[in-house]
């Protein structure tokens, strides 16, 4: 697959987040930067994400990126760039049968605390509701992942329950996940 095809699938998903930050889909040529950033944050990320164990080399990330490009509808497989530097990722995975989008995100330690994830998630939620006909957005965050849970609050998502042992994280461990949700009517009141 050529390196430019990713942009053809979703040509308009290129969202300015302010302060020189941009959210856009990964392209195969981003595999080096993506693997490098995951690898340098491996210990932090493995606490919350199983996929860290699958990030074994650059080729694994190229395969991931190409699998995302094949998937036309979902708003996932996006990086957040600040200038030329990859800062993290933010996705909205769409479950079409229920008109639902599920947020997922991570950030390089150096970029934490600037509101990048909140702005990227807001942009993807707006896209999901307005362009993809989504009715609901949800987020599942580790009970102890206080930064993620703070993002959920800032996004106006409501806590709906705790899914016990529902998150498999690095090293084969399981964590409880808080489930947050928002329906489109609630979102309209906030924008």
């Amino acid at each position, binding site marked *: 697959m050529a390196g430019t095809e990713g942009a053809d699938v979703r040509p308009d998903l290129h969202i300015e987040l302010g302060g020189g930050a941009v959210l856009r889909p990964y392209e195969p040529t981003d595999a080096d930067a993506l693997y490098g950033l995951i690898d340098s944050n491996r210990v932090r990320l493995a606490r919350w994400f199983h996929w860290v164990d699958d990030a074994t080399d650059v080729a694994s990330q190229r395969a991931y990126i190409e699998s995302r490009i094949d998937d036309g509808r979902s708003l996932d497989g996006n990086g957040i760039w600040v200038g030329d530097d990859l800062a993290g990722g933010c996705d909205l995975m769409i479950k079409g049968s229920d008109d639902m989008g599920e947020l997922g995100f991570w950030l390089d330690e150096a970029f934490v605390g600037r509101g990048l994830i909140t702005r990227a998630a807001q942009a993807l939620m707006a896209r999901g509701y307005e362009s993809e006909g989504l009715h609901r957005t949800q987020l599942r965050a580790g009970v102890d992942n206080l930064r993620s849970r703070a993002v959920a609050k800032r996004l106006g998502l409501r806590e*709906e329950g705790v899914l016990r042992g529902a998150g*498999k994280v690095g090293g084969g461990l399981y964590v409880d996940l808080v489930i947050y949700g928002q329906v489109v009517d609630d979102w309209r009141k906030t924008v």
Partner: protein
Amino acid sequence: MNQNQIYWDLGDRVVIRSYTLDDAQALFDLIDANRDHLRPWMIWEHTTKSVDDTRTFIQSCLDEPVSIEGNGIWVDGELAGGIGLDIDTLSNSGEIGYWLAKRHEGRGIITRACERFFDVAFDELGLHRMELQAAAGNLRSRAVAARLGMYEEGVARDGIRVTDGYLDSVEYAILEDEWRERRVQT
């Protein structure tokens, strides 16, 4: 037979087996005869318009590499309903889903079928957690979850889409050690 196709005799003339394409007509006929019964809860009721749709569904289940989707429940040799296990390898968990024709309700068939699936999920497949989503108003389905000893973990607002709109989804789950403990007791 693929390894994720099944043929289980539950006793009392109840059998669960994976659909084959030869079942497409019987499956369509049963759904067609139960439309009013299924429509409030099952999104696929209104997308099942002809036997071609059930054939497409069965083929998609046959193509499924991991999950044990697309199984019929037969009572006295007649198709009575359906049940499927969706496996999420990333979280090592499974989600059960089922339906039953109206005239077979009230005999514990779904509970027994789920029990067999949970035994297999935890003992043979090594899953860590089994989930069930039931619409808040679907009291029969929620009673199954309670009989299985599942815990109500939350309510995803408007989490289920059906023909006429969106329904709150009650999230039930049971963990491997809880299932084993329950089995010792019963």
